[in-house]
């Protein structure tokens, strides 16, 4: 049987709909048990490989024989909206292979060291306090996403980059349009052009008149001839969009999840630093908000656990399933914040693993206990059936979270 014939027969389409808003689709679990390396049909009719086991996902993500370059034939895109975006957007280093990827990433890693991010702790704590103060001073019922989950990471990433927070409504709107997998061409193009234009101007202004922030420091590299101004803008674009909705949705969906597990929420509220750290890792594992798979294309023929993946064939690495692999985790569907391991692949794996993870971690480690301590009676005011979960977005979570406190 040729690979073409196999692909014609692909019965599975990806992504699948969820049965339970807190778990990946059950079909992924079935595939993991029965067909861990299989073909799946995606939006454009193509049939890339779909890998669901923890060991396979990690091994391919760490394998340089698989490319992250979406301009290569065979690369499986998430949705039509993402294809439009790729065709028009200046690529950031997450869509490059080494050595280009390494050259650009290495200019940023000093900005995101564990120690450097730790210096942001007072700012993050102060921001959390101010947002909770504002909640407390307002009506006793509110939308936690707008009041807390979204503004916290937004304020922090704006501070880090040197993007004026006053413009947040503008770039949140563009970011949302870009992450909406159902966005049509007109909407994607408009959002891209608006955001790219905005960041081009900002990068140029900071290159000429630097301040103490990340974009200005990259501007200095432009002046030193190490970087193009368009590369600065592309990096700022990536960090701004990535910094917004990932952490925001971990706060929103994570809080909702904790409220459904009062015993676990109590541990987070009253727990020591180690308990809170462990809770954050466990929530990252079970929720895996970047829920539509990492994508690669094979550069040469590669055998993965006995299956031959040929050069030019696309691969989807389902981190959301890998993080629930029973071969890796006992009772993988249970939320157990005492599990105490950070071996999940919620931030990916390999050379493209999330650069901002120290920042995401510290924000979550501060946000969850602070929220639960300030409002011990925090509760969701609607049943799950009335909550709009973000199935159609590249980052999973909740659109709104109506709470009372």
């Amino acid at each position: 049987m040729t690979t073409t014939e196999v692909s014609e027969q692909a019965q599975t389409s990806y992504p699948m709909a969820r049965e339970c808003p807190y778990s990946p689709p059950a079909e992924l679990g079935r595939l993991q048990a029965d067909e861990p390396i299989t073909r799946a049909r995606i939006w454009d009719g193509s049939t890339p490989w779909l890998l669901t086991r923890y060991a396979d996902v990690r091994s391919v993500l760490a394998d340089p024989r698989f490319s992250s370059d979406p301009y290569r034939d065979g690369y499986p895109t998430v949705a039509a909206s993402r294809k439009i975006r790729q065709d028009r957007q200046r690529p950031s280093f997450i869509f490059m292979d080494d050595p280009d990827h390494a050259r650009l990433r290495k200019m940023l890693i000093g900005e995101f060291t564990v120690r450097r991010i730790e210096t942001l702790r007072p700012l993050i704590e102060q921001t959390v306090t101010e947002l909770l103060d504002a909640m407390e001073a307002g009506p006793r019922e509110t939308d936690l996403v707008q009041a807390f989950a979204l503004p916290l990471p937004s304020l922090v990433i704006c501070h880090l980059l040197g993007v004026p927070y006053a413009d947040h409504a503008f770039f949140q709107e563009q970011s949302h349009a870009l992450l909406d997998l159902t966005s049509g061409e007109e909407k994607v193009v408009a959002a891209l052009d608006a955001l790219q234009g905005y960041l081009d101007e900002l990068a140029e202004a900071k290159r000429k008149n630097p301040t103490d922030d990340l974009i200005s420091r990259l501007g200095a590299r432009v002046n030193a001839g190490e970087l193009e101004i368009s590369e600065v803008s592309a990096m700022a674009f990536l960090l701004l969009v990535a910094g917004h909705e990932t952490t925001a949705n971990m706060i929103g969906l994570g809080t909702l999840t904790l409220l459904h597990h009062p015993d676990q929420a109590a541990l987070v509220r009253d727990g020591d630093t180690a308990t809170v750290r462990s809770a954050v890792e466990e929530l990252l594992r079970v929720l895996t908000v970047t829920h539509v798979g990492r994508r690669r294309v094979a550069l040469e023929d590669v055998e993965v656990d006995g299956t031959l993946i040929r050069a030019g064939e696309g691969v989807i690495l389902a981190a959301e399933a890998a993080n629930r692999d029973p071969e890796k985790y006992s009772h993988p569907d249970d939320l157990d914040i005492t599990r105490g391991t950070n071996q999940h692949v919620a931030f990916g794996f390999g050379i493209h693993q999330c650069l901002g993870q120290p920042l995401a971690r510290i924000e979550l480690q501060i946000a969850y206990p602070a929220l639960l301590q300030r409002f011990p009676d925090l509760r969701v005011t609607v049943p799950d059936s009335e909550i709009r979960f973000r199935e159609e977005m590249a980052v999973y979570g909740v659109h709104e979270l109506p709470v009372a406190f």
Partner: protein
Amino acid sequence: MKVTVDKDMCIGAGQCVVTAPDVFDQDDDGFVEVLNENPGEGDAEAVRDAAHVCPARVITVEE
């Protein structure tokens, strides 16, 4: 236990620092630094974890 790293291949994810802070650090540019090349038994499990979670697989542990 002996710990070595391939600093040239480090991508600065900082997972090692989070996992075994007594043994690993990052320099100002974000690259890994080994604070203790011969960690004791008390750090052994954390060091093995750090090698496992290193996304660029640049940590080698000899037992």
